[in-house]
């Protein structure tokens, strides 16, 4: 707590019309340290961050709001423009969206300087290159002329950080800057933010992920429904949380939690996992030498793996590593160029569709965005009736008993029967997708990033549900994710994919404790951990 206070907010509230999005929050951002605002979607953390730039779009009131020595409550739009970019700047989520796809990144970075009109054109360009060098952008002159869509993911993140640094601000706000990035990019952004802190800037980190925050934050404030429920020194909050909600969030972090131990207090306690006869050696699902190329690009090369009955195989890899293509080949949606898939000992792919149709009932699929996989005209009841009747009927009344059973199995209220899935929350939709996949009583579920779009506490309850279903029904899972901590918690065995190849596989505990391959070590070292 040594640094000078750069931003001080006392009882800051932000409202939109009659809706109060942020209620009486107080915090301080100090030079050379990092404050993290942690909360789930709708907690008001982004609105809070934006109100520090005068960009919340709502009405902000406070007992005191001081931004870099100025009283922010009485600033004109012109004075705000002076502050933005040169005193306080912001790094937004998703570099692809936060940099204009139609303009070269060098111009975007230069705009920050142009807005403050300090430098002549030539010097401005020099400064742009300097900033790009400071974030270790390779070939800065060339990259400055390219548009964000032409850059690789890593370079794009660097450009995004560079545009926030161009005006040499004292405070940098990182608004979910690591959300939806795979582990290597997350590590890159976190390292950059750490560097900013070491340069003596104040960093305000907005995140929904406590584990990521743990790496960087000196202080943490936990937000829920517009209020800060608990705030304090990071070690204190993470080690000895006082508020129930903080404990709930911490508990929801899956990494290091053994299999079948619930992540959410709200979940039903599990019966002990069935340890019956480890004898049946036959696997539920096996892939042998699967390969697929698109043109010259080899998406998957000779991937082989097995999912034992009643167990989970996790496939982990970064975006573009070939995980999803593998899943599509396993599901028989894309014929492999080479290799086979066997389901319950029978050939599943490549095969003629009519021949394997009966076998399809043994394998279900869950996607990241379930809404796209539902017929938009069907209600919850109709979707389930359609699945139960093999497409012959969509009258839920005819299948009242099995529909009710399915809804109970996934802990969805019967009152949702007549709703359209569009009206459900993200967690409810995923539960519905699970219920539909379970309708034909499959032996195997293929889950492709099933919880990646969900908030931490919702993710915890869905993972608990998947655990319970596996214990109760003995369904085998092929669980695909970019999120190492989810994979660690959910998998018995794990396969690591990199550039289309499975580079390492084995028992989860073994791979996570003693990785053999350099790439796996790199991934694991970048993984945020609490425990």
């Amino acid at each position, binding site marked *: 707590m040594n640094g000078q206070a750069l931003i001080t907010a006392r009882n800051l509230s932000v409202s939109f019309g009659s809706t109060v999005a942020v209620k009486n929050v107080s915090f301080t951002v100090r030079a050379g340290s990092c404050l993290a605002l942690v909360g789930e979607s709708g907690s008001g953390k982004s609105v809070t961050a*934006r109100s520090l*730039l005068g*960009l919340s779009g709502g009405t902000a009131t406070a007992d005191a709001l001081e931004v870099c020595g100025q009283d922010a409550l009485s600033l004109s*739009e012109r004075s705000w*423009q*002076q*502050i*933005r*970019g*040169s005193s306080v*700047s*912001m790094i*937004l*989520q*998703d570099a692809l*969206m*936060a*940099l*204009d*796809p*139609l*303009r070269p990144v060098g111009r*975007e970075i230069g*705009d*920050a300087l142009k*807005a*403050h009109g300090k430098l002549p054109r030539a010097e401005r360009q020099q400064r742009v290159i300097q900033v790009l060098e400071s974030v270790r952008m390779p070939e800065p002159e060339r990259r400055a002329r390219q*548009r964000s*869509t*032409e850059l690789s993911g890593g370079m794009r993140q660097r450009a*995004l950080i560079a*545009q*926030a640094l*161009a*005006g040499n601000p004292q405070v940098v706000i990182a608004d979910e800057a690591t959300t939806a990035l795979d582990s290597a990019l997350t590590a890159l952004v976190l390292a950059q933010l750490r560097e900013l802190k070491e340069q003596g800037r104040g960093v305000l980190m907005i995140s929904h992920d406590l584990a990521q925050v743990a790496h960087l934050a000196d202080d943490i404030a936990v937000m829920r429904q517009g209020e800060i429920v608990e705030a304090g020194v990071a070690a204190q909050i993470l080690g000895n949380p006082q508020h129930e909600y903080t404990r709930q969030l911490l508990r929801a972090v899956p990494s290091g939690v053994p299999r079948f131990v619930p992540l959410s207090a709200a979940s039903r306690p599990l019966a002990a996992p069935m340890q019956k006869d480890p004898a049946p050696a036959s696997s539920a699902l096996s892939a042998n030498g699967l390969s697929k190329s698109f043109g010259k690009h080899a998406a998957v090369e000779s991937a082989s793996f097995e999912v034992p009955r009643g167990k989970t195989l996790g496939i982990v890899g970064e975006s573009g590593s070939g995980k999803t293509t593998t899943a599509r080949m396993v599901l028989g949606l894309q014929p492999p160029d080479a290799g086979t898939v066997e389901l319950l000992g029978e050939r599943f792919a490549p095969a003629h569709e009519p021949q394997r149709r009966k076998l399809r009932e043994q394998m279900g699929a869950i996607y990241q965005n379930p809404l796209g996989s539902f017929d938009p005209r069907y209600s919850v009841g109709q979707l389930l009736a359609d699945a139960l009747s093999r497409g012959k009927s969509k009258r839920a009344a005819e299948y009242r008993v099995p529909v009710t059973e399915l809804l109970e199995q996934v802990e969805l209220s019967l009152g949702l029967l007549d709703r359209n899935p569009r009206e459900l929350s993200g967690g409810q939709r995923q539960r519905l997708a699970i219920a539909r996949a379970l309708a034909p009583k499959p032996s195997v579920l293929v889950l492709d990033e099933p919880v990646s779009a969900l908030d931490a506490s919702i993710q915890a309850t869905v993972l608990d549900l998947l655990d319970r279903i596996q214990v109760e029904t003995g369904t085998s899972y092929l669980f695909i994710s970019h999120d190492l901590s989810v994979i660690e918690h959910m998998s018995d065995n794990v396969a690591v994919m990199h550039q289309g190849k499975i580079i390492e596989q084995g028992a989860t505990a073994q791979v996570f404790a003693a990785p053999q391959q350099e790439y796996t070590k790199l991934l694991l070292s970048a993984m945020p951990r609490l425990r």
Partner: protein
Amino acid sequence: MGTIAWAGRKIGGALVVLWLVATAIFIAIRLIPGDPAEAIMGGPGSQASAEALAAARAEYGLDRPLIAQYLMYLGKLATCDFGTSYSLKQPVIGIMGEVLPNTLWLALLALAAAWVLSLCFAAQAMRANRVGAWVGNIVEIIAAAVPHFWLGAVLIMFFSSMLGWLPAVDNGTTQGLVLPVLTLALPLAGFLTQLMRDSLSYAMSSQFALAARARGESRLAVFWRHGLRHAALPALGLTGWAFSSLLSGAVVVEAVFARPGLGRSLLSAVLARDIPMVTGIALFSALVYIVVMAITEGLERAIDPAGASS
């Protein structure tokens, strides 16, 4: 794709389209029951003289096998020979050379006017409240639903008959151009505004606009640097279609304002069933469409080389 490969593909595609249009017209002429020579000379009602029919047979090689006729027809088209208008007794290409600049000029002015109008409306709509947006929406839909021939009449009624500000007939002066251009431009502006408003509000509420504001740029700067580009792109993609609909509209507008041009020539050719003239004009407008498409695609590539918007 390199620029040269891209241009090669465009030219190849354009030739295929032109060839298909020409072939369709050739087949259509043969599909008319009766003597094709008579069809060319204005149908059974035209009572063309025996010599005229014989001349047509010779010119189109109608006494030769069908495939020879087809090749001869394509060969003539390839050398820009569209035949002779029998109603005007002149080569079609010459007549088109006279009237085409008139129509293209009208269409270009209307296109420019529609762009300016819709950019202004779209920018204005960004600042409107809910009622304003609703009213704007209705006005756009009505503008897009107004037929040219009626709009022309209403504008004449108002600005010419009642106010006496502008001439009702195109007399070759600049004032004479105002009403025809407006008549063509307003419905198109209705379409374009709807399109631009959507993409403009997308751009202005996007993450990159927020990032720009957070860098200290004013709303106006964000509008100029980011909003306009994104608003222009989809509208630019529609320019081929817009130009084609302007040529359709020009047929009507030239009739309403008694203005010489491609549309009027086409109309009198249709009434006289002057097939060489009609096919010449149809082929020519297809060519115009293709050229306009190529230009707009080139512009799109310049604004958005990575194809980020598609």
